[in-house]
């Protein structure tokens, strides 16, 4: 008996390798746009927000989009290669956690590098709402928040894509309406998203609720995928 090739781990690796490529493209564009804007907008008398603040929002939307694309571009393909739905689900979860961490690490790393070289090129960069340079604990706090935000945005996108695939456009539109509510809740739980219009909650309430939201999205997506018909 041959062992299972498309195990969750293997699917996670293949998905991650592909998504990292996409992410590099996204971040490169983000970086170039930031450099162009910052070189115009900042000078001795004016300062400009740092890269993490600048791309906050775009990076979330990027995660939402690759979440939506997961079903049409990857699920269908891996089913044809003989993967089981459950293994694909677990693989996607692993890869989405990894990609959420990766995109956060790269953004923060680039922000630090830009801070470092800004002195030479005469840019005046400051952190706006998201401050992670003042202390190590502030750094960890912001890092975790950003990574969780990226993950939640991906899971919401995945849910939208799956609903359209499984239940058609009517329920698909409903899932978009639902996702706007979820994004608002995320905005309350994680006070740094671009959806954070409302007063934020204290961390000891927000953190467990964030975990609950993530587990809930895992559950919804698993329900949607576990016996879905592969359309041919």
């Amino acid at each position, binding site marked *: 008996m*041959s062992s*299972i*090739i*498309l195990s969750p781990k293997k699917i996670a690796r293949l998905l991650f390798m592909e998504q990292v490529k996409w992410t590099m493209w996204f971040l490169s564009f983000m970086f170039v746009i930031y450099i162009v804007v910052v070189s115009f907008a900042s000078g001795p008398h004016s300062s400009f927000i740092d890269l993490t603040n600048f791309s906050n929002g775009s990076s979330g939307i990027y995660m939402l989009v690759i979440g939506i694309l997961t079903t049409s571009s990857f699920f269908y393909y891996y*089913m044809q*290669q*003989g*993967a089981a739905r459950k293994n694909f689900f677990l693989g996607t979860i692993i890869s989405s956690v990894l990609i959420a961490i990766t995109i956060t690490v790269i953004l923060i790393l680039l922000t630090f590098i830009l801070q470092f070289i800004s002195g030479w090129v005469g840019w005046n960069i400051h952190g706006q709402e998201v401050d992670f340079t003042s202390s190590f604990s502030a750094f960890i706090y912001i890092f975790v928040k950003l990574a969780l935000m990226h993950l939640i945005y991906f899971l919401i996108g995945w849910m939208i894509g799956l609903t359209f695939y499984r239940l058609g456009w009517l329920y698909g539109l409903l899932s978009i309406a639902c996702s706007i509510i979820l994004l608002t809740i995320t905005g309350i739980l994680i006070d740094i998203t671009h959806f954070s219009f409302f007063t934020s909650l204290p961390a000891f309430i927000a953190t467990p609720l964030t975990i609950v939201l993530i587990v809930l999205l895992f559950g919804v997506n698993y329900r949607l995928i576990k016996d879905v*018909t592969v359309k*041919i």
Partner: protein
Amino acid sequence: MSYAIEAKEVSVQYKGFTAIDQVSFQLQAGKIHGLLGRNGAGKTTLLSVLSAFRKADAGSLIIDGENPFENPRIMQDTVFIFDQQKDLEYTYDKVDEMLKEMAYFRPNFDEAYAFELVKKFKLPLNKKVNQLSKGKKSAFQAIIGLASRAPLTIFDEAYVGMDAPTREIFYKEILNDQEVYPRTIIFSTHLVSEADYLFDEVLMIHNGKVLLQDTNEQVISKGFSLTGSLEQIDAFSKDLDVLNSQVLGGTKSVTVYGELSEKQRNAANQAGIEIGVLSLHDLFVHLTKEEDE
């Protein structure tokens, strides 16, 4: 390695419509099974269930001793090739890269054989898959299906766009490779007359139900035609299962499904009635004929 299949009362429903209606059959391992049925008979739905692309609404399906749905082992060992012309429009990888990638997913994939087939089907290795012609796209899929050497290999009208000589190459390869590396092959087709020599066994479905299932020889032996004078044929065939009849002047020809006893054969010979054999194609056409056709 090849897998046996046992379906018991399998049903699939779409909204208010029964596509597969309590279908039961057994497919022997290591054989080439022809799946015949008209448009909308439920062939693709049935194959979707066999390949675990779809869950059956009722009934039980056992492949190699286990339920195939969400079964990683069975799913890995099942290759389902269907008309993917539209999907391949968006495949921008080159032919050779795609074939090498397949080796990664399928445990029995034979890369050397795949490239041998590329030569036979005259596929350009450096071309991107989306740039291939319709027939070459089908050939590309056929190569994946053959070279995967999966214990359960399903071809659902996989020849779309192939010209007659290419289809011939495809059929020959199925026979040759199946002989060396036996596997269970299900071959669904409309083009019965040109592919009938492939089948060890035939499963005919009609309106979501099994019409007949038997070995190819048995099926063919059950169909014959009787030709003679109008009165003779009418008298002779009144107790037989007549599928079709044609009258031309004083001569009548009927298509009959069933078996003739030795006594009946002798009687026919004595009466000067001509007994002819029917092809699988004729049987398929007559057996699936609707009342109003």
